[in-house]
């Protein structure tokens, strides 16, 4: 099944207001350090990068490693400057790419 994302961005904000953004994505985050029940190593399969852009400008990015739990939950704050789109992109092993976006109205 395809990856699922849940995004929480306020629909409206005042200009200059600090807003909280919450993102959740389904991913197994397999570390590559484990072995299966007959001793074969389980290959690494993790998300390696997360980027958030606000009307095209990168406002937050993160590098993810094996120590991050499954279904990474990333939350951060930004200043609401203008109406537009917040775009989110996760990339990872085995060509994993997932994108999501949310609209915000700043008045």
């Amino acid at each position: 099944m395809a990856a699922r994302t849940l995004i929480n961005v306020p629909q409206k904000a005042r200009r200059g207001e600090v807003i909280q953004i919450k993102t959740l994505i389904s991913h197994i985050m397999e570390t590559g350090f484990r072995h299966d029940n007959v001793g074969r190593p389980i290959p690494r399969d993790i998300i390696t990068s997360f980027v958030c852009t606000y009307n095209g400008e990168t406002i937050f990015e993160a590098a993810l490693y094996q120590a991050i739990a499954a279904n990474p939950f990333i939350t951060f704050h930004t200043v609401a400057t203008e109406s537009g789109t917040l775009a989110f992109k996760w990339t990872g092993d085995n060509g994993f790419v997932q994108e999501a976006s949310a609209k915000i109205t700043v008045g």
Partner: protein
Amino acid sequence: MRPRARLAVAIAALAAAALPSSGAEIPLNERRSAYEDMSRDNKSMQDDDTSNPGMLAVLDGEALWSAPAGASGKSCADCHGDAKASMKGVAARYPAFNDNANRPVNLEQRINLSQEQDQKAPTFAYESKEMLALTAYVAMQSRGEPIAPPADPRLQLFIEKGRAAFNQRQGQLNLSCAQCHDDNWGKHLAGNTVPQAHPTGYPIYRLEWQSLGSLQRRLRNCMIGLRAEPYAYGAPEYVDMEVYLMWRARGMTLETPAVRP
């Protein structure tokens, strides 16, 4: 001391403290969900649908609900319509008595029966991503509803069987479920609060598992802790236990998909 040894000593101490077992069930007005013992962070993770990782599986389940499957080419939605209406309260009354099986079946088994008989589709394995997703989606439609086991006299025998198993000492540690969950809830076992063991939020997202899991997975967990041999998934012994646990939690509010540490 290694954690395992420390746990064994703690369990042994608990067992000694618990003797003789009072054998009394928890009074109805003293029952509480393990939600209440969670940290503020974990509670807020469960309460917010955009931070509850169980909701990711619910989204998968919603897609499965309307996806045609099997030789019939029908989806769940083709017969049952909108799950928000048709599945409301269903999880609150399972396991329920099934005439063909001549015994109670739980929600997972009921879903598989429908796939096998109505959709003519292959069934889902226990704890498979699909089974957990569909169960979570169906059960979430009962979120906020009181647990309401059917007043079916044929279930009485299975409530009694489940109750007997709950009070039966087992495993190398020779402990019953009741010795922890009836007699010593609220005390501590190593670093954890002993819960009352009410199945109010299954399937649950357990942070320790980093995934969703069924009530039967949780029951296996406890059996392994007692160093008893767990039954196979779907075993009638587990379903009897589920019948008893749902009866024991009657009237409590369903929280699916719940988050637990």
